[in-house]
């Protein structure tokens, strides 16, 4: 196939992946809300198909451009989809019961990919000389993988915060009932009311499980992100003769790294474990997103390869 045909194939596959993820998210969402048995496996099958299309899109893009398929923001968005969805599938393989959470993973992945396709799409082409180095293969691959895994972890942290709230409500002492003492029937009614109020969020896995998912996912992503930053510094040293210049990209990478390091500390600190730690992960997610969207497009620096 010619490069032009490959590029078209890549675009088609990328949209196919997005559509599959949307369908799978809907299936998981229905499974989550209504507990219908067959929806989950169907969602899983569609997710796997979408991931295959997503991988195909990256490979075709790489062949079309004659280089690794992570050279600009559009291509990053494709890889973000692959890493988050694959990371989620690994978790489902190890803990089948978390499958319905797919809706909360696939929707952000779709958002990232659709944004990439609609806003940042550029024709497949070569790299500018400053980016043309074997370090790009290592540094950029690690940066996208690490930050995508950390985003996945932060999604679990958000779910943890939701579920933790539900659990605390349920644990809270029942409000005082009619004067003169509570009858047993009233107590049951109150419990039911509380359960109704919590709604479908009660169906999330236990807060402990979500916390564990978030931590283990962070523990996987953080070393990769650390490695990406180190590799970036080595690359900067090789390309410009300095490791670190505090350009906006470097600054925001440092910020998000520091926040996730704080998260890891918080997990081992009395009084910070749990909710506060999870909020740190959410802030970390915001920093990663800012680094990717705002810094690449609005703030200029040596790293502005956005468009």
């Amino acid at each position, binding site marked *: 196939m010619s490069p032009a045909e490959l590029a078209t194939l890549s675009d088609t596959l990328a949209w196919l992946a997005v559509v599959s993820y949307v369908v799978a998210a809907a299936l998981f969402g229905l499974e989550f809300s209504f507990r219908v048995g067959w929806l989950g496996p169907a969602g899983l099958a569609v997710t796997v198909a979408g991931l295959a299309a997503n991988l195909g899109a990256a490979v075709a893009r790489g062949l079309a451009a004659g280089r690794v398929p992570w050279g600009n923001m559009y291509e990053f968005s494709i890889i973000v989809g692959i890493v988050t969805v694959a990371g989620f599938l690994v978790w489902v393989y190890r803990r089948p019961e978390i499958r319905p959470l797919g809706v909360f993973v696939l929707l952000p992945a779709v958002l990232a990919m659709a944004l990439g396709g609609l806003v940042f799409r550029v024709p497949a*082409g*070569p790299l*500018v*000389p*400053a980016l*043309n*180095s074997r*370090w790009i293969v290592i540094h950029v691959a690690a940066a996208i993988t690490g930050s995508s895994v950390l985003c996945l972890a932060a999604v679990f942290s958000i779910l943890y915060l939701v579920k933790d709230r539900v659990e605390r409500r349920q644990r809270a002492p029942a409000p005082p009932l009619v004067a003169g003492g509570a009858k047993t029937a009233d107590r049951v009614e109150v419990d039911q009311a509380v359960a109704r109020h919590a709604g479908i969020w009660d169906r999330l896995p236990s807060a*402990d*499980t979500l916390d*564990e998912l978030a931590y283990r996912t962070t*523990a996987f992503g*953080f*070393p990769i992100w*650390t*490695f990406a930053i*180190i590799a970036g510094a*080595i*690359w900067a*040293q*090789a*390309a*410009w*003769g*300095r*490791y*670190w*210049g*505090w*350009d*906006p990209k470097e*600054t*925001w990478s*440092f*910020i998000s790294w*520091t*926040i996730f*390091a*704080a998260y*890891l*500390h*918080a997990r*081992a*600190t009395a*009084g*910070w474990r749990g909710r506060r730690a999870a909020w*740190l992960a959410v802030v970390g997610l915001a*920093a990663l997103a800012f680094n990717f969207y705002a*810094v690449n497009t609005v*703030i*200029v*620096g040596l790293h502005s390869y956005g468009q």
Partner: protein
Amino acid sequence: MAVELRPPAARPEPPSRRPGLGHTLRQAWREYRSMRTALVLLVVLAAASILGSLFPQEGISPRRVDQYFGDHPALAPVLDRLGLFDVFGSAWYMAIYLALLGALVACLVPRSRALVRVLRSRPPRGGSLDRYRTRAVFDTSASPEQAIRAARTVLRRHHYRVADHPDGPDPWGPGDPEGVPRLVGELSRGGPPVSRGELAAEKGYLREASSLLFHVSLLVLLVGLAYGKGYGYRGQAAIVEGQTWANARVAYDTFTPGRFFGLTRLAPFQLRLDDFTNSFHDNNTPKEFVSRLTALDLDGHPTQSQRVAPNRPMTVDGVRIFQSDYGYVPVVRVLGKDGTELLAPQEVLTLRDPASEWSTGAVKVTRAHPQVGLELTMFTGLRTAPDCPGGAPFCNDPRLVRPVLVVLPYQGDLQADRAQSVFTLDRTRLKPLGDRPLLLGLGQSGELANGLEVSFTGLKQYSVFTLARDPGVPIVAAAAALLLGGLIPSLYLTRRRIWVRATPAGPGTTRVELAGLALQGKPAFEGELARLAQQVERGTLDAPDRST
């Protein structure tokens, strides 16, 4: 964190002392080296760094700082005093950073001591085992000794460090909810000591060890960065094709030595730019730029030669040489009305605009009367409408296809005795000469309104190099490797302790209890303990001689 694996029981409070100054200081010190301080300082450092990306920074974009001063004349000086245009070099940023490093050192010392202490001591007794959440109990017909032997084998096979706590009065007493040791005398009154065996086993010290390795490497890495910066230097130099440049401080366009860098340490070499080429893709985005550089010793003998390009630096005597920019050098000659040479063919350095690829420069003809200044704009490929996009009257092809020099002449006083840029004219005492610019192709000449003849006789390129020496690189590289090597196990390993106790429970029956405590990874640990208990049970069944 000095991790103590203890049963989840209350420990007796130490007797409270009257708070004095020493007490307060000790308290503050303990607070300073606590995890919470580290955590808060990390968050504060992140927040402070945000400021560095909100405001333009001197170190990255000095021009945008100037622009900010222009746009906000009232606010900018205030922000400047607060160090917001140089956040990462400001005193308060440094203070946060140093406080964090101090906390790191302060916490590494007790952590290391605690780890050594734990490694030296044997895993202690477990106290009453029914207090633990993670537990497994089974009855077996093997003797207590056999059960303990089987447990030891299983735990050793799983790389636990195992300590025997054989028979004897158990100072913890069964079922004591507080786990406070009782006096031995008191215990003996409770009846004869029962025959039983106990094992304490522990695993996962490597987690704490690698966490320490990670934190120490982080310190070493920062030391390596500071060392490299303090004892190294950075500078920029422009070399014209065919010229030789000597490595001396005056030859640099910019030079930033580290605080401890002695000038005598500049390595004695010269560089010759043999050739420079740049190329573009079909869509006119830059493809490659390459300098052929030769290093020479002071006697002019070539020592090495290399193609230097972005991401492909050359190393001479420990100095790394990076391709960083390039530009054009038109050669211009000026003849007087009578044919005398007012300006011998001169290489004029020009500044290249990376967006349009046209370059600007200036020629100062001080020997003309009155003096003549020429403003030059050099196009690499001048095109005129209708060849230009968007209906522009003219545009530039970045490839070197049709070099054209546009000359804007002035006459008057150049004020050449005052310090001024080589790229521009000081026009305060100059008046335009004639009413139209001169357009010269390569090799062409043209006449100015006052009869002077300007020729565009040749064209060369220059290449700009960043030269840097950083003696900290080996330290930083080693520290970075150790940092990653410590980080991964410290996040994946878990520290856990298991106790096994075998007690006679009726004739021919032994009750075996396993209880455990994990500092991390509790859900996985429950499964592990259950599996270990099964293996121990199977081990007791395999025991060859039953004593009953």
